[in-house]
C-alpha cells in the first residue's frame, strides 16, 4: 500500500459521513472534548510541535499563523475555512468534504476555540452544491451535539458565485463582506486585519482536517509519516492521462514516479501509454519533463530543485501526444478571463500574453513573453497576477516539451 488513510477515512468505514456515529468513530467527538478543555496557548503549541503547514498552496507554518491571530489585539476575531477550490486540476477539497465533512469542520471549531473567535465562515464555491449540502448536514450534526451555536462558535456557510479570484484570501473576505471580491494589498495581513478589519484565521479545508486528525490522536502519531522537512500526508489530485485519476493521500516524500504508477495510486500512464509531461500545482503551476519527474519527490526541497512547487496538490498528467502549447494557450485565456482587473500588470498582462501566443505563437517572441511574465510576477497585487505566467515561463524553459509547436 502506497496510499495512507488519515485525512480520508479508512476504506472499511461504513458510518454516514455526516453522522454522530462518524464523529465518534473518527475520534472527533473526543478531540473536541479534549480541546475545549485546553487553553489557546496549549492548543497552539501542539499545532506548532506537529509541524503542520498550510495545504492550500503557500505551505505557511500553521502554528505560527494561529499564534499571530491569538496574539493580535482585538475583541472580535474570525475563523474562515477556504473551500473555494477553483484552481485548475484541483479537486481534493471536494473529495475530502464528500468523504469526511466533519473533519474540516471540527478543525474550524478547534481553531475558533484556540484563537478566541466566536464566529466562523465556511466559504465554498457555488459549483459545489452537493458538497455544500453535505457540509450543511455535517454542521447540523455538530449543532445537535452542542458544539456549534451562539454560545460556542457560530458557523455560517457562504456560497461563492463563480469567481476564481474569490479564493484569494483577502478577495474572499471582500466577498463575505458583500463587496466585489478584489484582493487587498498586503500588509496588513489577515491575521491582523482580515474580515471587517478584525484579526482573522483563514485556512484551507485540508489544513483544518489535519488539525482535526492531530487532536483525534497525538503529535507522535501525526509524525509517523512525511519527511524531516515536511511532516504528514498530502492529498494529491491526479487527473489526465493516468489509468486511475482521483484523489489520493500520500506521505510527503513519495516519488512522483510512484504517485503516477503505483497500482493503488495513478495506476500507470494512460492515453498513448508514454509520459509526456506533468503540470504540477494547477494553472499557476510548473510543467515538468519526464526526466524531472523521474528524479523528483513530493517535497518542497526536491521540487524546488526543478523549479516546481506542490501548490494545492494538483497533478495533471499529459501523454506524449498532447500539444502543450495548446494547453498553455487555454491557461492564458483562463487567466485573462479571471483577472479581476484591479491592477495593471495583471489586467493588461494576461491579455497581452493571450495575444502574443495566439497571434505569433510561443516561439516567435520568447524574450518579450519572458519579460512580460516577469513584470507580472513582480508587480501584480495578488497571487493570481504573480503566478499567472509561471506555467508559460516553465514551458519556455523546457524546449523539449514544445515538439508540437
Amino acid at each position: 500500500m502506497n496510499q495512507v488513510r488519515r485525512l480520508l477515512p479508512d476504506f472499511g468505514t461504513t458510518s454516514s459521513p455526516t453522522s454522530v456515529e462518524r464523529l465518534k468513530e473518527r475520534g472527533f467527538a473526543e478531540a473536541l472534548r479534549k480541546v475545549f478543555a485546553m487553553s489557546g496557548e496549549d492548543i497552539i503549541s501542539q499545532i506548532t510541535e506537529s509541524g503542520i503547514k498550510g495545504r492550500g498552496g503557500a505551505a505557511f507554518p500553521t502554528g505560527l499563523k494561529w499564534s499571530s491571530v491569538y496574539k493580535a489585539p482585538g475583541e472580535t476575531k474570525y475563523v474562515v475555512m477556504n473551500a473555494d477550490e477553483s484552481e485548475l486540476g484541483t479537486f481534493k477539497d471536494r473529495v475530502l468534504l464528500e468523504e469526511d465533512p466533519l473533519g474540516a469542520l471540527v478543525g474550524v471549531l478547534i481553531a475558533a476555540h484556540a484563537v478566541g473567535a466566536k464566529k466562523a465562515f465556511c466559504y465554498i464555491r457555488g459549483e459545489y452544491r452537493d458538497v455544500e449540502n453535505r457540509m450543511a448536514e455535517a454542521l447540523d450534526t455538530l449543532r445537535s451535539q452542542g458544539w456549534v451555536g451562539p454560545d460556542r462558535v457560530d458557523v455560517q456557510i457562504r456560497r461563492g458565485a463563480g469567481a476564481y479570484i474569490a479564493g484569494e484570501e483577502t478577495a474572499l473576505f471582500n466577498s463575505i463582506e458583500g463587496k466585489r471580491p478584489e484582493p487587498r494589498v498586503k500588509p496588513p495581513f489577515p491575521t491582523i486585519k482580515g474580515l471587517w478589519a478584525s484579526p482573522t484565521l483563514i485556512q484551507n479545508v485540508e489544513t483544518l482536517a489535519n488539525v482535526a486528525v492531530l487532536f483525534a490522536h497525538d503529535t507522535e502519531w501525526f509524525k509517523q509519516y512525511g519527511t524531516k522537512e515536511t511532516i504528514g500526508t498530502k492529498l494529491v489530485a491526479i487527473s489526465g492521462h493516468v489509468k486511475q485519476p482521483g484523489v489520493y493521500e500520500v506521505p510527503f516524500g513519495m516519488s512522483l514516479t510512484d504517485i503516477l504508477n503505483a497500482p493503488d495510486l495513478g495506476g500507470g500512464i494512460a492515453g498513448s501509454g508514454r509520459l509526456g509531461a506533468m503540470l504540477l500545482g494547477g494553472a499557476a503551476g510548473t510543467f515538468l519533463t519526464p526526466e524531472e519527474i523521474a528524479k523528483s519527490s513530493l517535497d518542497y526541497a526536491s521540487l524546488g530543485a526543478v523549479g516546481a512547487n506542490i501548490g494545492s496538490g494538483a497533478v495533471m498528467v499529459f501523454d506524449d501526444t498532447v500539444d502543450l502549447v495548446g494547453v498553455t494557450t487555454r491557461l492564458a485565456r483562463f487567466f485573462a478571463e479571471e483577472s479581476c482587473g484591479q491592477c495593471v500588470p495583471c489586467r493588461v498582462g494576461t491579455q497581452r500574453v493571450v495575444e502574443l501566443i495566439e497571434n505569433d505563437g510561443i516561439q516567435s517572441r520568447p524574450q518579450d513573453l519572458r519579460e512580460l511574465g516577469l513584470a507580472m510576477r513582480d508587480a501584480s497585487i495578488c497571487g493570481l497576477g504573480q503566478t499567472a505566467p509561471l506555467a508559460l515561463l516553465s514551458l519556455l524553459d523546457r524546449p523539449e516539451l514544445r515538439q508540437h509547436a
Partner: protein
Amino acid sequence: MDSENGTVSDAVKVLLHDIPRERGQLLPALWRVVEQYREITPELIGAVSESLNIPYAEVYGVASFYSLFDNPGGKMPVYVCTDVMCMLQGSENLKHAAESAAENGPVTIRESACLGQCDYAPAAWSGARVLRRATPEEIVSVVKEAGQ
C-alpha cells in the same frame, strides 16, 4: 414578472424578508434572487438595492463580478467544463451536442472554467446536478429534461 399583488420591487422585498439589512448579506441575497429569477436585471438590482438599503452602483458592481450571476435572458443554464482536463477528454463534442439540443429552447449552454471534477472528465453541471464522464447522449437528455 410583475405579480398581481405588486411590482418586482415588492416581490423582491418579500423574497428577502428574512435576510438582515446588512452589507454582508448581499451575496446570499443575490443568490436568492438568481434562484428565483435566473438572471439579474437592472430592475432586480434596483429592488435589491432598495430592499437591503445598499446603493444601486454597489449592488451592480458586486452582481456583475460573478460569472454564475451572468445569465442574460434568464434561460436555464447548463454549464460544460471546457478547461484543460475536460478539453483533453472531448468537451468540445459535449458542448456541440448540448448546443444543438438546446437550440431555440428554454435552456442555454455556457462554457465553464474548471468545475473541479477532473477525475471524471469531461464534466458538465446543470445547477442542480453534476454530470461526470458525461457523454453527448447524456447531456442531450439533461438539456431536454431541464427544458421541461
